[in-house]
């Protein structure tokens, strides 16, 4: 139990964020003490994208435009290791080149046509 608490006290947390095509990394231990001079690697689909060392505040940043998920691994002394997966935001693709208002009006016209069509078929069936 005491050993488990010790392990938890030295758990290495890694955060990653992106802003304006710059990747920001932060590594710190459970009690908010920074992971100073810890080595980090940024990996994308098993390819090394970037590597370096965290500064005295446990942070690092570098310019990189990413469109696909990356894994940030931070290696500290005494075998402590932490990692995080960061998925960049990608705006949803436009599913239609038609303006939504036009699409709604088209749906409206189609629905009206179907209503009239339904009653026309209904009338013909009744007329037999």
């Amino acid at each position: 139990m005491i050993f488990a608490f010790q392990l938890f006290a030295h758990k290495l947390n890694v955060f990653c964020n992106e802003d304006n095509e710059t990747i920001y990394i932060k590594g710190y231990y459970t009690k908010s003490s920074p992971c100073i001079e810890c080595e980090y690697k940024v990996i994308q689909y098993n390819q090394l994208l970037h590597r370096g060392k965290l500064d005295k505040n446990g942070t690092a940043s570098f310019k990189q435009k990413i469109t696909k998920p990356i894994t940030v691994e931070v290696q500290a002394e005494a075998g402590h290791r932490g990692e995080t997966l960061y998925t960049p935001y990608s705006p949803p693709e436009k599913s239609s080149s038609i303006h939504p208002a036009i699409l709604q009006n088209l749906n409206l016209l189609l629905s009206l046509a179907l209503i009239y069509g339904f009653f026309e078929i209904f009338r013909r069936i009744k007329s037999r």
Partner: protein
Amino acid sequence: MHISEGILNTPIIVSSSLVAIVLVSYFAKILEVNSVGKTGSLSALFFVASFIHIPLGPTSIHLVLSGLIGALLGFEAILAIFIALLFQGLFFGYGGISTLGINTLIIAIPALLGYFTYNTDWRFKLFLVGSVPIVISSLLLFVILVINGDEFITSAKLIFLANIPLCIIEGIISYFTLKFLQRMDF
């Protein structure tokens, strides 16, 4: 006035669907050939009316015209409203398919009150034709939501209150429309 998918409990959906199917089937069967055109046209009117939104503070309400349609069609209004609700649910997500039955009952049954009111000698009947069915529909909607569960009571109250201005608007619309039609000897 529409209840969306995924809100109501299964017993309410099943029972209301069965009742709606029986009513719609019956009135479709007895519908005369000469009335099909008028029924279809007013079904289209009901369909389009739902797209006329009236801003009401933070929200908006849409026209229903159930009373007017009931006054002009009588019992055939049930079929007209059912078909319009079906296409609203299919193409625009207004209401839904599983809730088609309950939505039909909530709107179409009070529409018949419009028919009966129109055939009275009351002084303000042209206004009441439009407003009374909306009041009754709102009450039915309130009751259904309360039966569905206690967590819907607040929403039910808000919906009921939001439909009060609609009663007045629909009453005005039905008054002028029916007055015009009376002058045209319709």
